[in-house]
């Protein structure tokens, strides 16, 4: 199939992009890497009148850091995140996750901001953002606002972004020394949407004072921080002692869907396996 006819304009500045977006109203759509948008256009699932290209905006590029945060421009391409030494040092979870995002050709063009704004429930990076407590910097006609990742993802392809807003930057707090992280997903083929996935960050010791953030994706309509399961683990004397209760508690955290790949029971079973294996990995990291 061929896309419906549309107009195309390349924004020159962020301000220009915002103005174009406002003027276009409902008919406007931002394009950066285009890796999700273009297939949707070609399937005629979307029919924007105007595509506003923000791929080349310098204001959206760049990976930087200060004392407290790592800042990722929304226009940063997956491949740049995957190869950045700074990201490797400070956000190893992201680099673990990016290996699972589609295929190299897609990672070469697809952007972080596009990935997050698309809000595919099976996508890896939104889950990482919640696990890492990222904050989204959003710019609109009324100015700037900050949205915590936990409030950004609203549902299937739905985010807190208004139609006239642009996701500009993602800021992720630096992790304290000794932070451990784990990423795993169960996908039928390398690069496929996951049947179930888990991004998990842990701070503290195996026993006693521990903070653990298990975020599941590919289960339900958005990435989910499994609060009940986390609580079970944190309250246990030793993490591993809390596993069984945490697995049971997943029933309170997750509402797995039925789809072509798996029914909800199977998904719940996979989530439990992911939690068990993730925990084993985190504990092994502590010993290593």
């Amino acid at each position: 199939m061929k896309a419906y006819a549309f107009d195309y304009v390349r924004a020159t500045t962020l301000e220009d992009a915002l103005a174009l977006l406002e003027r276009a109203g409902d008919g406007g759509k931002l394009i950066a890497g285009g890796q999700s948008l273009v297939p949707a256009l070609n399937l005629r699932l979307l029919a924007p009148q105007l595509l506003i290209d923000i791929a080349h905006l310098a204001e959206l590029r760049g990976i930087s850091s200060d004392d407290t945060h790592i800042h990722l421009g929304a226009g940063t391409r997956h491949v740049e995140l995957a190869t950045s030494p700074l990201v490797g040092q400070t956000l190893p979870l992201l680099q673990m996750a990016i290996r699972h995002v589609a295929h190299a050709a897609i990672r070469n063009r697809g952007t972080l901001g596009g990935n997050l704004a698309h809000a595919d429930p099976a996508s890896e990076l939104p889950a990482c953002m919640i696990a890492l407590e990222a904050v989204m910097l959003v710019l609109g006609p009324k100015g700037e606002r900050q949205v915590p990742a936990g409030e950004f993802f609203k549902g299937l392809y739905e985010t807190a972004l208004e139609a006239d807003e642009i996701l500009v930057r993602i800021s992720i707090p630096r992790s304290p020394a000794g932070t451990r992280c784990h990423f795993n997903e169960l996908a039928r083929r390398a690069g496929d949407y996951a049947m179930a996935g888990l991004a998990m960050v842990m701070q503290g010791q195996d026993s006693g004072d521990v903070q653990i953030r298990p975020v599941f994706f590919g289960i339900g309509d958005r990435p989910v921080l499994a609060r009940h399961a986390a609580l079970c683990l944190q309250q246990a004397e030793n993490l591993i002692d809390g596993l069984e209760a945490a697995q049971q508690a997943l029933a309170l955290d997750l509402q797995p869907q039925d789809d072509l790949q798996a029914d909800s029971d199977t998904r719940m079973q996979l989530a439990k396996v992911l939690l068990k294996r993730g925990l084993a990995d985190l504990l092994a990291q502590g010993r290593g």
Partner: protein
Amino acid sequence: MTDPLSPLDRPNSYIGRTVPRPNLERLVEGRGTYVSDMTLPRMGHVVFVRSPYAHARILDIDTTAAKQCAGVIAVVTGAELAEQCSPWVGVLSHLKGLKSAPQHAMAIDRACWQGEAVCAVVAATRAQAEDAAEQVQVQYQELEPVTDMRTALEPHIPLIHPELGDNLAFERSLDAGEVDKAFAEADAVAEAEFVFGRHTGVTLEARAILADWNPGERRLTVYQGTQAPHMMQNIFAKHLALEEAQVRVVCKDVGGSFGIKVHVYADEMATAALSKRLKRPVKFVADRIESFVTDIHARDHVCKGRIAVKQDGTITAFAIDDLTGIGPYSMYPRTSAIEANQVVNLVGGPYQTRNYRARTRVVFQNKNVMCQYRAVGHPIACSVTEGLVDLAARAIGMDPLAIRTKNLILDDAYPTDSPSGLKFEALSHHASLAKLKQMMDYDGLRAEQKRLRQQGIYRGIGIASFIEVTNPSAAFYGVGGARISSQDGVSVRMDATGAIIVQTSLTEQGQGSEALTAQVVASALGVALDKVRVILGDTDNTPYGGGTWASRGAGIGGEAAWQAGKALRMNILKVAGTILQTVPETLDIDQGVVIDKETGRERIGLDEVARITYFRPDTLPADFQAELLVTRHYVPRQYPFAFTNGIQGSWLEVDTETGFITLLNHWCVEDCGTIINPQLVDEQIRGGVVQGLGAALFEHCRYDESGQLTNGTMADYLVPMASEMPDIEVGHVVSPTLESELGAKGAGEAGTAGAAAAVANAVNDALDPFDVTITEIPLTPSVVLKALNQRRS
């Protein structure tokens, strides 16, 4: 010089040598000519409005708005196009009782599957045609669809074609030997129901056709990605009311076929009819969604099987009851009964027992049409047979290799036949098995399996022996009344510089027909490979023949090329003998130079022979006429099919917590007789194995109860990808057919025939400690987990 070992033993022979394919550079440099790329002046693009329902009456089609859209050339309904194109019925007389209903290029008053075309929009661009197609208003009245083949024959189920009396397209039964007695006297009987997921062959380039009716010369030229140009020439002529001489089918580069592109598709017939109606070139390229709902599907079978075995391991009977659903029409002209017929023919084929009972029933349903896809019927037959053999082995506590060694037809038993009447010239089951055992280090894997099980790691070994139909004679289609040629022709000529031009009726879709033809001709003649140019895929410019399908290219087209090359060599040597005043029989050609056969001394170059032939014939004797163009044809006569055989092995790991399967290694030993290009054969085997592994683990056209395909995109329909594929090691045993001089048998389908069976057996072997047997493919994580959970609870 010593006497040659065989006629193939030529100086500098290319037979048995891996040499680069002549079309390689052109294709990898992006200089191929695919129909998808072609543009002609005044060309229109056709887009089809397709039924969104599996079964619906068409009440009205309003094309008014669509005709007003920008760029639109014509909007044509099924009823209107029937003026140009007559309907067809996909039956063959040798498949007794096979029935089907007339199928039109586009549905007229009733759509019978989701995706059937009901209206055509032709516009200046594809995008414009799609825009206008959305404006075609079709009023449908939904009818109750028949989707479940298991209930399609029950009395309360509606009839898809009431005039046929029932939903049964074809039925065949076979009873050989003493089956009841064998089961009664068996020490153990094992049975299972084998379920196969409907899937398709996903070609890199979708179906594409560009039809150009030229009213000035009253000729239709069709550029088409097809495997059988002469068959299509006949079909276009017959249904567009033309003489065959008025139709030229040109088949340029084709991006994969796998049997998908050997059939007559309604939308392609519609495209040709539209060109005739509109008197201008019309092009249709299926998009991926259209491909999933219109490219033939295959393998939708449920097959119950039983096996009888003695305690010493002797298999004493096979019995099967097979059921398959083929969509609403039997495909034209090869029919949709061949696959089921092959299942009946092939089950138990590698084994000695003479006791075999089989039934197959082929039913209509409101889903996309089903027909022949790579290794037609073989994967079903092989999975059932080999699954049963493993069950029998388990029932009596015997090793899977040992039970096969005990029961496979002995290598010195040929010629022989099967209980279903298949004639085997020479197979090598035991040599193949021995080679597989050594290649995979069977005993070492068994030890590793045992060791890992103690660590909670579940790995399995799966074995699958198979036979494969290749080199089909007229017995396949011709005897049933189809104008599908089983013979091939090859013309070879030497031009005025000594270069060689070959025209063959084979076609090339990536498997190497061009390469093997060039290698055979270069070897037969004694010239360097780069002196040979091969022309194929053009009914105006090649001899008449079958094309490339059913693993026939090397065995049939290759032999014709060999005979033509030999005949031209003799004709060249006659000219040389006349020039050199010597007896042609004392001469030969090596590296493009005529030599003395005895001494190898160079006498005259082919360029010089050509120069004298074409420009100085006055220097030759008056009573001598050079003939530097010869044509030879070949078709197998002695055996209806040249059967090949082989055996595959799979080594994999099952994650019993997630149901995920990791393929660790795969082996295939096969016997395709003479190997012309080892690399091409190995890659054919590997490609075939990959498609079989796709069937085993991934590929599945999933329909819901209302007959809607639910996974018609490349994101949802999972094809096997490199990351999940294991190393595939290929071994050969060589038993040439003695029916031809070349001795080549087919290699195109062996990989696909046995791969899924080997994987399924390996999964069950891995799960042996859990006492789980799964006889359903694809083996998705959900399927595996469900089976394990059932056993655990």
